């Protein structure tokens, strides 16, 4: 046993020494991610974090402050529709952060809300206003969305980031933190060599990977503004969403319950919620099997939720089909107007109960 313990000690010692050198070198050569004062997952590709889920998971540490915050969460239409800089310009008195992640369903949105909450003090949570962008695609069932071959069954993109560097471990009841959330900053520093290597490896192999997997092309704002959809494009998008939603004829109850519970948690913290019914093109709304069921379910829910103190509901903005570059994403030329509309709703919203009681004291 002595021999085995000696060899184990030597090996662990060598690993610690090597990793220490790698950490020092990586911090020296590539400074830690400079992500600015406001978080914008849309800029993930330009950061050391590279992807929206990883950005949200690792960069959220700076949200533990007592300044008033508006945190945008949802899927890619929230990212494209409410650009962080444009919304921030409309709401200079608060911090605006966009933590929307492409491909999210409401389960993942709820997880992002919880990731923010878990690193915040109770006082910081009172200053949160979560803006959640809703549309029928957000209510995709977990079985359809997250039970795919490329991942452990049921893992969301956020779960994958939780497990990636061992910050969480997999248990029968879901992810359990290994690293206490309050030490997230230390954890991010400790994994710096991995972040640098990952970024470097991905940059070096980008052209090779583009031959392997069919990745969506990067489309410029000009191209989005000029986009005109023909009938074949529309059919392709409708088929895509039909398949993405598991070819279901109706939505299930579970995702709507997840939304309600997410709202409850935010309100219980003393925060505010703004629920935005995201517009989609008329041709999409009319062609999508699930849109009618979505409208049928979401409107009573929104009516009920908006009676709660701290909840604001923003109905779908008036828009035309020409305002969209594809089946869900608005053209960049309309996003400033969208930001103004959202800002008005946020500014006009009720003061959360917690803030009210705090000001009365």
């Amino acid at each position, binding site marked *: 046993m002595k*021999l*085995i313990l000696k060899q184990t000690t030597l090996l662990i010692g060598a*690993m610690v020494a*090597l990793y220490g050198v*790698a950490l020092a070198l990586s911090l020296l050569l590539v400074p830690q991610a400079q992500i600015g004062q406001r978080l914008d997952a849309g800029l993930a590709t330009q950061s050391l974090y590279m992807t929206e889920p990883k950005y949200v998971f690792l960069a959220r540490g700076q949200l533990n402050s007592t300044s008033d915050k508006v945190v945008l969460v949802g899927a890619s239409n929230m990212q494209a529709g409410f650009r962080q800089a444009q919304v921030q310009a409309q709401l200079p008195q608060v911090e605006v952060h966009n933590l929307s992640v492409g491909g999210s369903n409401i389960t993942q949105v709820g997880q992002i809300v919880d990731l923010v909450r878990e690193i915040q003090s109770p006082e910081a949570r009172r200053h949160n206003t979560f803006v959640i962008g809703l549309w029928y695609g957000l209510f995709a069932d977990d079985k359809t969305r997250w039970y795919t071959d*490329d991942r452990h069954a049921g893992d969301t993109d956020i779960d*994958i980031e939780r497990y990636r560097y061992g910050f969480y471990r997999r248990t029968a009841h879901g992810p359990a933190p290994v690293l206490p959330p309050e030490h997230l900053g230390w954890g991010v520093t400790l994994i710096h060599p*991995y972040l640098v290597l*990952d970024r470097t490896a991905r940059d070096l192999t980008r052209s090779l990977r583009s031959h392997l997997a*069919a990745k969506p092309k990067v489309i410029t704002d000009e191209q989005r503004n000029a986009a005109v959809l023909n009938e074949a494009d529309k059919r392709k998008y409708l088929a895509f969403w039909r398949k993405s939603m598991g070819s279901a004829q109706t939505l299930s109850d579970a995702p709507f319950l997840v939304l309600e519970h997410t709202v409850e948690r935010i309100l219980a913290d003393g925060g505010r919620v703004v629920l935005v019914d995201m517009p989609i093109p008329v041709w999409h709304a009319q062609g999508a099997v699930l849109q009618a069921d979505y409208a049928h379910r979401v409107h009573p829910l929104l009516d009920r939720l908006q009676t709660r103190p701290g909840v604001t509901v923003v109905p779908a903005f008036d828009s035309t089909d020409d305002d969209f570059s594809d089946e869900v994403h608005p053209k960049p030329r309309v996003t400033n107007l969208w930001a103004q509309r959202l800002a008005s709703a946020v500014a006009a919203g009720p003061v959360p109960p917690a803030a009210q009681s705090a000001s009365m004291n």
Partner: protein
Amino acid sequence: MAFTSLTFIAFITAVVLLTSAMPSPRGRSGVLFVANLVFIGSYVTSVEQVAPLAAFLLLCFVLIEVVRRSRSSAMLVFGLAVAVCTFIVLKKFSFLGDALILPFPYLIVGLSYILFRVLHLMIDAQQGELDRPVAPLQFFNYTCNFLAFNAGPIQRYQDHDANSRQPLLLDEEKVYRAFARVVKGFVKVGVVSAIFNYLFENMSARLLDPAAQPALPVLGAMMVAAAVFYTVYLYANFAGYMDIVIGVGWLIGQDVPENFNRPFLARNFLDFWSRWHMTLSDWFKTYLFNPLLKTLATRITSPKSAPYLAVIAFFVTFLIMGVWHGTTTVFVVYGLLMGAGASINKLWQVAITQRVGKKRYKAIGEKPLAIGLARGMTLAYFALALSCLWLDMPQLSDLVQRLGAFGLLACYGGLSLAAGIAFLAWDAVTNLYQPMRRDVTSVSNGVITRNLGLALQILLVLTVASFFHKAPEFVYRAF
């Protein structure tokens, strides 16, 4: 328990430490027994799920003892038939339909390899190769050894028994070599196989995308690329698993047999199978090929036909070995391709030897260009035939139809040539590197340097694991 999981690492750490705390043969047997129970238990959530395996083991144990006592051929045939039929039912072979399927989920991992072990025991028992009865504890530890439970290797019982009676002797060098072997295994599984699995999954997804209609040359290139990626993935995955279990075996006093001997050096299909999954090949050679050849030779006595008897025996052996890999129709195609490969290879050897003579044939085979081409052709045949392991029957038919005979031949020819050139280039580089290697080895022999080398490999595994969020499955577990 996945071999790439932290749970497995914790498990083997505990087994190694417990074994070194109880190094006597008896103590080691006890630790191995508990370890095997824990390992099998990690795959099930109820006793019911493990009951069919337990019943199968009990049945085989009784049959082996009956055969050993009677030494009767009829009893052996009966025992083999009962064991194989029970195995077919438990493995749910698709030709059975739903009639004989047990109506509850149960553990089938490890069954194939248990079958090989019990058939070997039964035959050896009848032939008087077992000098004493197999004790129940020894039987369980041999058939369900956690190191070989999932996918072999198939060790001879006599070797396992002799091994377990020896005291555990470790020294500093042996411990280091065991650690190095385990780490090497994790590099193969966690780095090489993970990267090639990523390449394969992306390429096969594009190849099988029903919406994509690539031109024939592109389709062929994608097919070849997917086949090569899968082959390297399979090799690294399986050979890495072997390195891990052999290394752990050294630490707990078990000499687990080697299963690979640089298979990509093989110059023909038959040579390939003497280097790839060697214990399976040896098993089939001992218990199927040799008896079959012997039977054929006693029935067909014409000297002219003698060389061709091996062709038939090879075809049957490789057909069965191929079919063994799965329970659906596509594995029959795989078996036919394996059988065809082996028998054509043997036919070629017979024909060319008759035409140019043994000496000249050997001389031709030693020319570097011929070696490169032969190795390329061997890899190409094996890689393309392996497609049966990742395609289902409709996908395979569709691809064959789309490629056509010309496309398939072009795939084979192109891959043979490309692989041949790559092998020749690789050999040239390694020959150049050879003198430098001696210097590197002498430097890396220091305790600190060699442990830094191991640590670097572990960090590499962790780095790649962080790139790919899902560790590759141990692929041979499925067979």
